[in-house]
């Protein structure tokens, strides 16, 4: 897995992504596109491509940061309940602030995601028995409880259907003007790059961090903030894409280790490439219909992950 292969792969896939879809746009025909074809390209296809790349990069990076901070390979925005909290936040925004703008929904979702993630971390600090499996189980349980609350109120207010549409991550509705909030992920990923060394030190645990003079609490908070904002932005615009933040960092970790300085660029690029492949396949396989992106990520990702796990036995134990 080298940068010099990943970058061309990303460019190639991006081009393919632009020219795959129901409306016939052919790259060989680009010099005599009609106005309508240009509009399709610029209003639908390009935003979709940008959204996929940003989501792929930022969710993978968020997952990596979470795994590093919790020192656990099985923690991600999905398994820590961050996604569920963000969803509850959206519901609250819809119910309490009827007619809230996307920005307002984002903000409420962000607050919930942040609060939920902090709660998870506090619980983690309290449990003594930090088994690799036990920690994500706590997150999953917490997430399920939150989810039950969300479903209950959604049912009360007859919002189950619109909530389900949030749950089902999809890039098919991305149009120019409705996905730009995702750009918030770009500066956050840059911050993650700047703090890469500190996150690695934090990944060695509290004692090592303190011995090396790292402000552990501060780094923890910065990391959680990044994770919460990214998760909230993705849920509000695209919906949830489960396990992307779990699978990608783990695959990269198996090959490149946990020194973020080495693995962060690869995690980011591979996340984008992986999501692009899933999206393109999802669009092509049952053409002209689409397979939901969450399903594609789950199926392809877990197959890949299992394959890698079985090849390397001592990993993550």
């Amino acid at each position: 897995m080298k940068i010099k292969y990943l970058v061309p792969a990303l460019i190639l896939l991006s081009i393919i992504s632009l020219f795959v879809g129901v409306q016939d746009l052919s790259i060989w025909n680009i010099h005599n596109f009609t106005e309508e074809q240009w509009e399709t390209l610029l209003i639908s296809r390009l935003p979709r491509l940008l959204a996929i790349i940003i989501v792929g990069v930022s969710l993978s990076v968020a997952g990596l940061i979470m795994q590093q901070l919790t020192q656990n390979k099985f923690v991600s925005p999905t398994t820590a309940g961050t996604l569920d909290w963000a969803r509850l936040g959206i519901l609250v925004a819809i119910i309490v602030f009827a007619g809230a703008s996307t920005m307002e929904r984002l903000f409420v979702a962000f607050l919930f995601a942040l609060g939920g993630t902090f709660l998870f971390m506090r619980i983690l600090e309290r449990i003594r028995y930090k088994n690799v499996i036990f920690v994500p189980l706590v997150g999953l349980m917490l997430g399920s409880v939150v989810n039950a609350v969300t479903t209950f109120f959604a049912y009360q207010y007859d919002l189950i259907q619109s909530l389900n549409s949030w749950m089902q991550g999809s890039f098919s509705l991305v149009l120019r003007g409705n996905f730009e909030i995702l750009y918030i992920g770009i500066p956050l990923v840059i911050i993650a790059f700047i703090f890469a060394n500190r996150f690695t030190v934090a990944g060695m645990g509290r004692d090592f961090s303190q011995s090396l003079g790292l402000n552990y609490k501060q780094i923890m908070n910065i990391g959680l903030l990044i994770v919460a904002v990214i998760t909230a932005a993705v849920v509000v615009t695209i919906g949830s894409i489960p396990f992307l933040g779990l699978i990608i960092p783990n695959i990269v970790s198996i090959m490149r280790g946990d020194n973020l300085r080495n693995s962060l660029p690869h995690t980011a690029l591979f996340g984008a490439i992986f999501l692009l492949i899933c999206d393109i396949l999802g669009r092509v396989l049952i053409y002209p219909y689409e397979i939901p992106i969450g399903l594609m990520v789950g199926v392809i990702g877990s197959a890949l992950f299992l394959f890698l796990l079985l090849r390397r036995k001592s990993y993550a134990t």
Partner: protein
Amino acid sequence: MALNMLERQKSELETGDIALEVKNVSKSFDGKKVVKDVSVGVRKGSITSFIGPNGAGKSTLISMMSRLMGHDSGEVLIEGKPIKSYKSDELAKKVSILKQANNINIRLTVRELVSFGRFPHSRNRLSKADWGFVENAIDYMELRDMQDKYLDQLSGGQKQRAFIAMVLAQDTDYIILDEPLNNLDMKHSVSIMKTLRKLCDDLGKTILIVVHDINFASCYSDDIIAMKDGELAAQGHCHEIINPTTLKKIYDMDIGIEEVNCNKICVYFT
């Protein structure tokens, strides 16, 4: 002016002066007192071994001396200044601590791990001088042929050596090691103790170490601090502590002492 001089003298301690000190320190967990009103001093440029039965409070005491843990009452002084008055990045260049680290599961190569010992000095990019420290530490701990292996591919002893190399790369005046001989076979235990002796004699480092094997304490340390039930049981030069009466008080065991090649060896197996 005079005050200034005084302060400078204070921080430039001579070998043998008390450099690390705790005064009347106590610590409890869940209402149970683990360290009770302990006062000890560690001399600069010496190896001080902390000995005592399990649960005596040794680890807690050195954790407090190294800022990993706060203390409930009393004072912890480093070169005469309260530990709390140091900034954490300043302290990281002065005092390093290695706790028992069996549970760490980050995937770093040995070389990467050791290079993070330079983190307090250069946060983001290591300079040439920094890499010099890293290379030295790797050679010192004989890790050269496994420097590109991941930690999870190493045996317990190899891992332990890698962590010690990281502490060496940190290049602090004070090095605190909590049971560094855990998981190590005889050969590597001896080589680590010899390395520590060399660090102390050649480079003037001050080393605090928790050891379980009393003979390592006897053969390699200058001073010994003995703890029992959270209290200070004995403190003094190595030869003052290693005698049947004092050891009986610490361990509730009759321990014979033989002299072998000018080293006092405790015989407690039968």
